[in-house]
C-alpha cells in the first residue's frame, strides 16, 4: 500500500507536503498563503492528505468574524447608522421623532427603531422639552461604529471574541439568523486549524522527489511525447462520482405513458377531449339527472360567466332531453322531470373522464371498437395529501355486437393483473347513473392491500340510444393516483406535481417497473 501511495502524489498534494515539510506545521491561513494555492485546491489537497494520513490536524480553533449584511452595507454607504444620525440630530436641536422623520436619509421605521434603541440604552431621554441627550458619548452605538463599522469597511477582519462585551451583544442582536436580507451584520463562523506533516507524508514526499508524474493527460502531453518519460499519477478510483443533472422525463409522465402503452397494446385507440365541457357532455349525455346530488354546485367547477364551450347539436340535445324526461325511444320511463336546456349548456371543468366516452359515442365510433382516454379531471375538493385540484383518470369503452358483462369482467381482470400488479381481485356491485349493471373492481395489492381500482359497467340504453349506438358498450374508469404513488414510491399525492427541482431530481427513473405483474412489485 505505502509503495503505491508514496509514488502517486497529486501535484496539489505535493505542493502542500513540500510546504509542510519545510515548516513542520502551520495554520490554514499560513499554508494557504505559503503555497499560493486557491482556497478550493488547498482544501482538496488537505482533505486528500488527511484521508491518506500524510497530514494531520494538530489543533483547531473556531473563529467567529463579523461582516456586513445588506443593511449594514447601506449604512456604510451613508456613512452613519440611524442611531448615530439621530444622536447628531438631537445634538443639533431636533427634539421630536416626527421632526427627524422628515429627514429622508433613513426610512421612518428605521428612525423609529433607532429612537427606541437609544431610549432603552438611556443614551437619549424624553423630557417635557422633547428628546434630550443623556449620554453625549453615544455609548455602545459610537463604539459599534468605531470598533466594527470603520475597521470592517477598511477590510479588516473583526473577531467577535475581541469585541467589547456590550458591542458584541449588539452585533449579535443585529445579525438575525432568519431574514438575512434585513440583517445589519452577518456572523461568519470558520474553523481554522494548525496542520502538520506525518512520517508517512515525509516518506511519500521523499519517494516522489525528482519524478515527473502526469496528472491530467493533455493534448500537449500526447503531442510532445512527454508521457514517455514520466509516470502517471494513480487516481483514487473509489471516490463517489460528482453528481451531474441530465435531461429526463418526469416520472409521473412516464407512468402515464406506460398506461398509454399498455392500453394501446391491448388494442385501444386514444380519445382526446376538452378540459372545459358543457354539462351536456359531462352529465346529461351520461343520463345523470339534472337533480342528481353529484351535480350540485359544490362538486364541479363552473367557468366564469360569458365563457362557453361549443354546444351540442340541438337534434342530439332533444333526444337526450326526451330520454331524461320520459325515456325517449329506450323502452324505459326516464327520470320524469323537466329537463333544462340552459343547464345543459353551462361550461364546467370536466369532472369525469367519462365525458370523453360520451363524445366518442356521439361521433360515429368504430364497431367493433375499443377506446381509452387519459383525462385531467377536476373535482371540488380541498387539496391535501390525497387530493389534487386536478388529477388524471383513465377511461375506456368497448363497443361490439357480442359484447357483454363477462367481457367487462375479463378486461377488468386484465387491468387488475396487468396494470395494478394485483395478486387478488374481486368484483363488487356498484351504482353509477350511466351504467347498469355496474361493477367496482377491487384489487389486493402486495403493498397497499385491498383498494378500489375503478368503476365499470354496461352503458345504459339511455346513454347509447340518443347517440345512435345500438350495440352493447362496456365502459370503465380507473383511478391512477394511488397506483402512481405506489409505482413511484410516494405517499403524498402533492409530490407527483412538486415544484421543487431538487426533490424532483431525487425521484427514481425506472419506467420498466411502473406497471405490471407481481414480479415488479
Amino acid at each position, binding site marked *: 500500500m505505502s509503495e503505491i501511495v508514496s509514488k502517486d502524489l497529486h501535484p496539489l498534494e505535493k505542493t502542500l507536503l513540500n510546504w509542510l515539510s519545510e515548516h513542520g506545521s502551520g495554520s490554514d491561513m499560513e499554508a494557504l498563503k505559503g503555497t499560493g494555492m486557491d482556497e478550493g485546491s488547498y482544501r482538496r489537497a488537505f482533505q486528500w492528505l488527511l484521508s491518506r494520513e500524510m497530514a494531520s490536524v494538530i489543533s483547531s480553533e473556531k473563529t467567529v468574524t463579523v461582516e456586513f449584511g445588506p443593511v449594514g452595507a447601506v449604512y456604510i454607504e451613508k456613512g452613519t447608522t440611524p442611531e448615530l444620525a439621530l444622536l447628531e440630530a438631537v445634538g443639533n436641536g431636533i427634539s421630536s421623532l416626527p421632526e427627524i422623520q422628515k429627514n429622508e436619509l433613513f426610512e421612518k421605521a428605521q428612525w423609529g427603531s433607532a429612537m427606541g434603541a437609544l431610549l432603552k440604552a438611556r443614551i437619549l431621554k424624553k423630557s417635557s422639552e422633547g428628546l434630550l441627550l443623556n449620554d453625549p458619548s453615544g455609548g455602545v452605538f459610537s463604539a459599534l461604529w468605531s470598533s466594527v463599522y470603520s475597521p470592517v469597511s477598511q477590510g479588516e477582519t473583526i473577531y467577535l471574541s475581541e469585541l467589547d462585551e456590550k458591542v458584541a451583544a449588539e452585533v449579535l442582536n443585529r445579525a438575525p439568523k432568519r431574514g438575512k436580507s434585513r440583517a445589519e451584520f452577518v456572523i461568519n463562523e470558520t474553523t481554522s486549524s494548525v496542520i502538520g506533516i506525518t512520517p508517512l507524508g515525509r516518506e511519500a514526499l521523499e519517494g516522489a522527489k525528482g519524478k515527473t508524474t502526469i496528472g491530467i493527460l493533455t493534448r500537449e502531453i500526447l503531442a510532445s511525447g512527454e508521457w514517455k518519460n514520466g509516470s502517471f499519477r494513480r487516481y483514487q478510483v473509489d471516490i463517489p462520482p460528482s453528481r451531474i*443533472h441530465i435531461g429526463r422525463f418526469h416520472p409521473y409522465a412516464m407512468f402515464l405513458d406506460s398506461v398509454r402503452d399498455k392500453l394501446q397494446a391491448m388494442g385501444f385507440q386514444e380519445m382526446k377531449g376538452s*378540459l372545459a365541457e358543457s354539462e351536456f357532455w359531462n352529465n346529461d349525455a351520461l343520463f345523470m339527472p339534472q337533480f342528481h346530488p353529484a351535480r350540485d354546485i359544490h362538486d364541479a367547477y363552473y367557468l366564469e360567466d360569458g365563457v*362557453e364551450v361549443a354546444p351540442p347539436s340541438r337534434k342530439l340535445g332533444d333526444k337526450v332531453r326526451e330520454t331524461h324526461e320520459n325515456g325517449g325511444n329506450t323502452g324505459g320511463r326516464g327520470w320524469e322531470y323537466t329537463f333544462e336546456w340552459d343547464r345543459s349548456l353551462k361550461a364546467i371543468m370536466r369532472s369525469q373522464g367519462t365525458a370523453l366516452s360520451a363524445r366518442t359515442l356521439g361521433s360515429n365510433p368504430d364497431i367493433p371498437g375499443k377506446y381509452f382516454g387519459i383525462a385531467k379531471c377536476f373535482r371540488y375538493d380541498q387539496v391535501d395529501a390525497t387530493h389534487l385540484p386536478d388529477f388524471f383518470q383513465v377511461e375506456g369503452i368497448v363497443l361490439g355486437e357480442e359484447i*357483454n358483462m363477462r367481457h367487462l369482467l*375479463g378486461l377488468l381482470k386484465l387491468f387488475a393483473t396487468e396494470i395494478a400488479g394485483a395478486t387478488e381481485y374481486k368484483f363488487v*356491485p356498484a351504482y353509477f347513473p350511466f351504467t*347498469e349493471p355496474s361493477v367496482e373492481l377491487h384489487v389486493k395489492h402486495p403493498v397497499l392491500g385491498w383498494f378500489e381500482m375503478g368503476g365499470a359497467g354496461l352503458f345504459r340504453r339511455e346513454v347509447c340510444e340518443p347517440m345512435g349506438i345500438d350495440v352493447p358498450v362496456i365502459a370503465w374508469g380507473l383511478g391512477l393516483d394511488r397506483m402512481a404513488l405506489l409505482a413511484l414510491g410516494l405517499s403524498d399525492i402533492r409530490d407527483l406535481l412538486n415544484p421543487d427541482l431538487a426533490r424532483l431530481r431525487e425521484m427514481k427513473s425506472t419506467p420498466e417497473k411502473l406497471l405490471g405483474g407481481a414480479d415488479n412489485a
Partner: protein
Amino acid sequence: MPKIEIPLKDFLPLAEMDNTENLEKLLESLKAELDGLNEETVKIELNDTNRPDLWTAEGVARGLRCWKNGAESHLDSMADPAVHIDVHSGLKEMRPFIAAFTADGWTVDEDGLASLITAQEKIASSFGKERKTAAIGFYPLDGISFPVSYGTSSPETRFRPLGEETEMTLSEVLEKTEAGLKYAGLLSDFKEYPVLRDSSGAVLSFPPVLNSHATGRVVSGDSRLFCEVTGTDWHTVNLTATILACNLEDRGAVICPVEIRYPDGEVTVTPVLYRDTLTAGFKEITGVIGTDADELDIEALLSKMDYREIEVGEDSVTAVMPPYRRDGIHPRDLMEDIVIAMGLNNMEPILPSEYTVGSASSVEILACSVKSLLVGAGCEEIMRPILTSFDKISIRTRTPEPPIRISNPMTAEYGVVSNTLLPALLEVESSSGHAAFPHRLFTVGEVLCRIDSSLCHTQMNLAVSTGDGDFGAVHSILGIICHLRGLDLSLKPLDDSRFIPGRSAAILINGEEVGILGEFHPGVLESWGIAVPVAGFELPLESLRV
C-alpha cells in the same frame, strides 16, 4: 353517500343473523360497504343514491333476509283507510303533497326510536333534499282526533314546539329554534306557513320544521303511531311514506292506510303501493350477462332480490319490484338485479374476441417526439396542476392575456385555469434556488384559451425555460428542435410585458407566428423571488407538427 350506524343488538335479529361473519361480503349485494364494526355497532355506507329504502336499519336487514330466504310480502293485507286528511288550498306553491299512515302493534323501544330518527334524518336530508321534497313526522296516534287537516296558517299562530319550554309563534320558531333556522329558507317566499292540525284544532306540527310538544312526541313504550310525510315532489313524498310503512311493518306493526283528500277533489290512499313492472327478453338478458338465460333459475334469482309476481314465460320474464323501490326505470335494471343475484364473482370473465388496432392520439405521439428531443437537449420535465391563481399568471408573470376564471373556486390559489405554462416553470424556478444550476426545464400540458370573446378551447402547449440562462440559451434549444424536425424557425422582435424590452420575440415557424420567446423581466423575477436570470419560450405543440 349516506352512512348509517346501527346497534348490533337491533340489527342482527332484524337481519336474522347470528353474528357479523360474512357481513361485509353480504352487504355487497346491496351496493353497501362495511364502514366500521365494533362489539356494539355497525356502520354501513350505502352507495346507491337511487335506493333510499336501504338507508335505514330495516331496509338493509330486509335486503339481507331476502338474499337468504327469498322475497317477502309487503303491505299486502292492508285494510281500507279508516281515517282521512283534508288538504287545504293555499299549499300549492309551497308544499302541496302529503302521505300518511298509522302503525299499530309494535311497541317502540330505544333502538326502534333511534331507527325512526335515523330514517327521518337520512331520507329527508339526502333523498328529501334537506326536507324540501320530503320531510317526515312521527306522532303517538292516541292523542290525535281525525280527520287531520293540512293547511296554511298565519306566522302568528302559536304552539309549543317539540323540545321547547314555551309556546312560540311560527315566526319565532323560524327565528329562534335550531331546526327553524336550518329550514327557514324553504319558507322564506311565503306569507303563511304549512300547519298540520287535528280535528280539535290542535297544532300537530309545523312541517317541515318541528312537531308539537303536546302531540308530536314519540317515546319508548308507544305502540300506536301516526306518520306523515309532506313535501314538494309527489313521488318523493309517497315513496318515503311507503318505505317507512314497510319498515314499521317489518318491525311488527300493522299498517293502516290514510286517505288524502286534495282540494281539487283528487283522493289518494297512502302509502302508495308502487309496482315497477319490468319485462326483459331472454335474448336481451343473454346479451347483457353473456350466459344463456335459459340456463338460469331467473325466478329464484329475482326472488333473492325481493321481486314479486315473477312470471317466467317462453322467451321473456316479467316481474314487479317491491313497493319500496321506484328505481326500475328500464328493463336493464331488472337484468342488473339478476346479475347481482348470480354474483359477479361467479361469472366467468372472458376477453373480447374481436381484433382491434390500438393507437395513441396524434397529439400525444407528437408530444412524445418533441419531449425526446428536449430531454436530449438536457431539459428536465416539469408537471404542475392546471388550476392555478390569477396572481401567478397575471400579477407575478404579467401574462398579457387573462386566464379564464372559475366562478366557484375552492380557494383563490386554484381560482383560474392555466392559459399559459410559463408561470408554472417560473414557480419551479422560485422553489428551486437551492437546486444545482443551470436549470433547463420544460413542460408539455393542456391549457384552456379563449378563441374569441366567449368560446374556449383546450390546446397542448410546450414551454421551456432556462434558470441562470439568457435569451441565447432558450433560443438555441428551440433552434435545435426546429432544425432536427426540419422546421424553418425565425424570430421577429416583439415587446411583451413579461420580458425585458428588446429581448423578446415572436416565434415564427415556417413563416407563421406561433409563440413567444424572451428573457424574463427582472420585475417578474423579483415578484417570484427568483435570484437568477431566466429566459423562456412557449408555443402550441401543434406548431411543431411537420
